[in-house]
């Protein structure tokens, strides 16, 4: 057993527990600042990960806990991804702290614990760890979602998330039981060598499909998307942001591992299933987003559509497709976090997340207006931002498979229709910022220094990934090399 492989997880755990301990001795007004401590801690862990953690070149995968836990390029990619996301979410939480009446330190600590779950998820090489890490994330989010106890919408969101989350957990655990019952193993490595012989076994396949249901819930894909708009709308904004990027990316990390490490032989026959899920997610998310007036709800629907776009890369069943998913996720990280940071700063009233609240933003805070505009443009896939190149890669991966299976052409055209539809509501947001008729509130918005830096970082990330994709594409390609 090699405990040192878990250094990311151990450090984050220590940080979370340390935060809770320090909280006991801190006076109330200082507690808000603990978020900066947490953010600095996460930042240091990220730096440590970037500069000190290297996989030995001869041995790309290292295992711990009897092959339950794997540290490979894919895991490392996702761990850095989650650390960066958590860093920005924590900075956002400090801005949000005045809207949380009690237990702000616990709020920060819970974010760190959700991060811990994501870090484990990125390394899961076993159905048991998959389940545990998923539950760690989901249960933490039940609490985080309903953290604003005084707000009915927040509580409502928490309950909705709890009920549907519990249902999907039941599916997952049932599926795992079926898979184990047939194959007598939970380990992905062992499963991959025996899965081929169960390809015709309906119980085994049912088990896998049930696991997919649970993962579909996490990535917010059709038809498991029903919770997303309500929860996105009701949850505190930093939580929504973390849900939109962290939880979704964790779902994708697990999905990639299950599909392409545990049962690659079976996945090869599932192109139609994946095409259908992807296509319907794109259409459902985009069509339902059109009439939305609440910005967070709109982003909830857009999140469904984006899960569909990313599933394009999974459905392509090729290395190019998988690296495109990772590339798209990285672009999505900066884009979504920029958008939610702006929402967190601008739309302060609990139920005032209506688009009209953005009116006159370009006069109140030009930086925030520009950030939200660029985020919307990137989500819509307009050059030269990250979303454009990401969508290009995904489309390319899908069209590359099309000569083998014409269904991929249908999928490509569905994605195209989705992009065109999405232009409408993304530009609706931009229009609400710049061309609303009667801005009522023209008071300038104070932007603290840390949040300013994080917005600049998000903008730089969006532009860098759009203008110089080479570096990230290499990283993504390296990361998916071990998937089959």
């Amino acid at each position, binding site marked *: 057993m090699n405990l040192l492989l878990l250094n990311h997880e151990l450090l984050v755990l220590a940080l979370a527990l340390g935060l809770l301990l320090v909280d006991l001795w801190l006076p109330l007004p200082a507690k808000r600042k603990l978020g900066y401590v947490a953010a600095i801690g996460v930042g240091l862990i990220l730096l440590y990960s970037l500069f000190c953690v290297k996989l030995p070149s001869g041995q790309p995968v290292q295992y711990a806990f009897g092959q339950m836990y794997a540290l490979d390029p894919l895991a490392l990619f996702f761990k850095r991804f989650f650390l960066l996301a958590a860093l920005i979410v924590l900075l956002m939480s400090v801005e949000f702290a005045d809207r949380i009446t009690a237990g702000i330190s616990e709020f920060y600590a819970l974010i760190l614990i959700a991060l811990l779950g994501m870090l484990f998820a990125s390394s899961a090489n076993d159905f048991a760890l998959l389940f545990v890490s998923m539950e760690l994330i989901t249960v933490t989010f039940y609490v985080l979602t309903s953290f604003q106890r005084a707000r009915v919408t927040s509580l409502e969101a928490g309950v909705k998330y709890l009920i549907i989350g519990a249902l999907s957990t039941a599916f997952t655990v049932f599926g795992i039981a079926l898979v184990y019952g047939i194959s007598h193993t939970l380990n992905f490595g062992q499963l991959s060598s025996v899965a081929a012989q169960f390809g015709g076994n309906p119980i085994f396949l049912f088990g896998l499909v049930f696991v997919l249901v649970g993962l579909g819930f996490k990535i917010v894909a059709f038809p498991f998307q029903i919770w997303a708009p309500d929860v996105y709308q009701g949850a505190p904004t930093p939580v929504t942001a973390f849900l939109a990027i962290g939880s979704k990316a964790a779902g994708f990390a697990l999905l990639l591992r299950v599909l392409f490490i545990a049962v690659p032989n079976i996945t090869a026959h599932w192109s139609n299933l994946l095409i259908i899920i992807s296509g319907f997610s794109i259409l459902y998310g985009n069509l339902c987003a059109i009439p939305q007036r609440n910005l967070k709800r709109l982003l909830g629907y857009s999140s469904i559509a984006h899960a569909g776009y990313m599933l394009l890369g999974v459905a392509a069943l090729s290395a190019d497709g998988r690296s495109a998913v990772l590339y798209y996720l990285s672009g999505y990280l900066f884009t979504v976090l920029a958008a939610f940071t702006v929402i967190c700063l601008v739309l302060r009233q609990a139920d005032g997340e209506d688009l009209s609240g953005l009116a006159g933003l370009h006069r109140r805070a030009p930086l925030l207006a520009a950030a939200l505009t660029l985020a919307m443009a990137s989500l819509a896939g307009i050059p030269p931002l990250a979303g454009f190149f990401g969508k290009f890669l995904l489309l390319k991966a899908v069209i590359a498979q099309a000569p083998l299976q014409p269904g991929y052409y249908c999928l490509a055209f569905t994605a195209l229709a989705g992009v*065109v539809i999405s232009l409408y509501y993304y530009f609706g947001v931009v229009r609400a910022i710049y061309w609303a008729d009667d801005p009522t509130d023209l008071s300038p918005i104070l932007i603290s220094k840390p949040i300013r830096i994080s917005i600049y970082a998000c903008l730089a990330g969006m532009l860098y990934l759009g203008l110089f994709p080479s570096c990230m594409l290499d990283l993504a390609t390296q990361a998916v090399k071990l998937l089959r």
Partner: protein
Amino acid sequence: MSPLTYIIGWPFFAAILLLLVPRNFRPVLRAVAILATFISAVLALKMFLQFHTGALGYQFEQQIPWVTRLGISYHVGVDGINVGLILMGAIVAFASACVSWEIKERDKEFYILLLVMTGGILGAFASLDLFFFYFFHELALVPTFIMIGVWGRGEQKNYATFQITLYLSIGALIALIGLIALYLQAGANTFDIPELAKHIREHPLATGAQNFIFPLLLFGFGILVSLWPFHTWAPLGYASAPTATAMLHAGVLKKFGLYGLIRIALPLLPQAAQHWTPILAWLCLGNLVYCGWVAMRQKDFNRLIGYSSVAHMGFVFLGIATLNVIGVTGAVLVMIAHGFLAALTFGLSGYLYQQTGTLQIDRLGGLLRRLPFIGGALMMAAFAGCGLPGFANFAGEITVFFGAWKVFPVVTVLACWGALIIGAVYMLRAIRALLHGPLPDQWAGVADAHFWRKVPFILLLACLLLFGCFPRLLTDKIVPSVKENAVVILLNR
């Protein structure tokens, strides 16, 4: 560094510079925009003059690897086909920056978008890489939508913005799928157009794949160029657009689709081209005759010239459909001529709108008395639009007809009669209604353009006349490139 990089780069650089200029420095904003487009135009002219006529291959090339894994590189270069288009684009961009004095509010954003659009257009025409070809076009397209949405005019502004965004995005994305499919089918792992062409010459694509990709490109690009029956966005869109946007889009950006057909679809998918061009020839009649017919019934002058610009695209489609050297050369010539012409007519109609606040033909009249220069220029533009000898359009259209006669005699006859006569009817009727007859009292106060405002119109007219009297300036450059580029298909015609 290739001069092309400077030609593309100046507008982008100026756009970034404008971000730093405070918004109340209005003369500075305008000066920077005009200066940047002027520099681009001068550099484009210099490149045009230095262009080695008759030499094979691309000139002024520059290549910088961008994503080596996918074979994408920033690769610019010109041959006879795009050297004239870039010159035309840069001059029109300068003219449209000049006429933008009409923009009174949010002018900082307007000029930034105008410069981004200019850079994108010139980049799209200069790119020899499929990815950047598309990338630059998208970059130019988005500002178009925003400009129409924000600074547009008329009651139907929002509807027009919505319509043009929807149509052009769908067109661009269909073309994108076609381009990606082409890249993947070629299997050369490169987006570089010359390399792709070389690879495909050695290993032609299977006919099935060609027949699938060609319609994607044809209709994707066709929507962008307002090919009948996908033209409905154009007249309303141009009628609602601010003057500069209409000039740049109708004049230059729209030619992107045609350029894509000539540069990519014909040489890389030759068998499919032969299969699909007869259909294109009949569709182009829809542009020439049907849209001309519709133009006759228009009550709004801007809509009329919008329809006339759709109609003129029919000549280019016919030229492309011939698949022979004469026809394709004529098509390129019409593209350049129509660029100047569309910019001129939209610029003049924009001036009229500024002065009168309406372009309803029946409400105007007798304006030539008050506007000797603008009226005179408008008359010349109308003559050029009818295809009068002496203007560049005549040279292009007659070349197209010469090329098309052998291949599609019926279509050519219909096109000649339909397009030229109908064109003359609606143009001359509009001129009579606008410029002649009694002058209504309410327009007694309109003023003619002073010297500086005349500059862009004089420049565009001069170009029309220059290339009309000396079309060899262009054809000598175009012909060898067309022969070289499309060598595969032209052998059997």
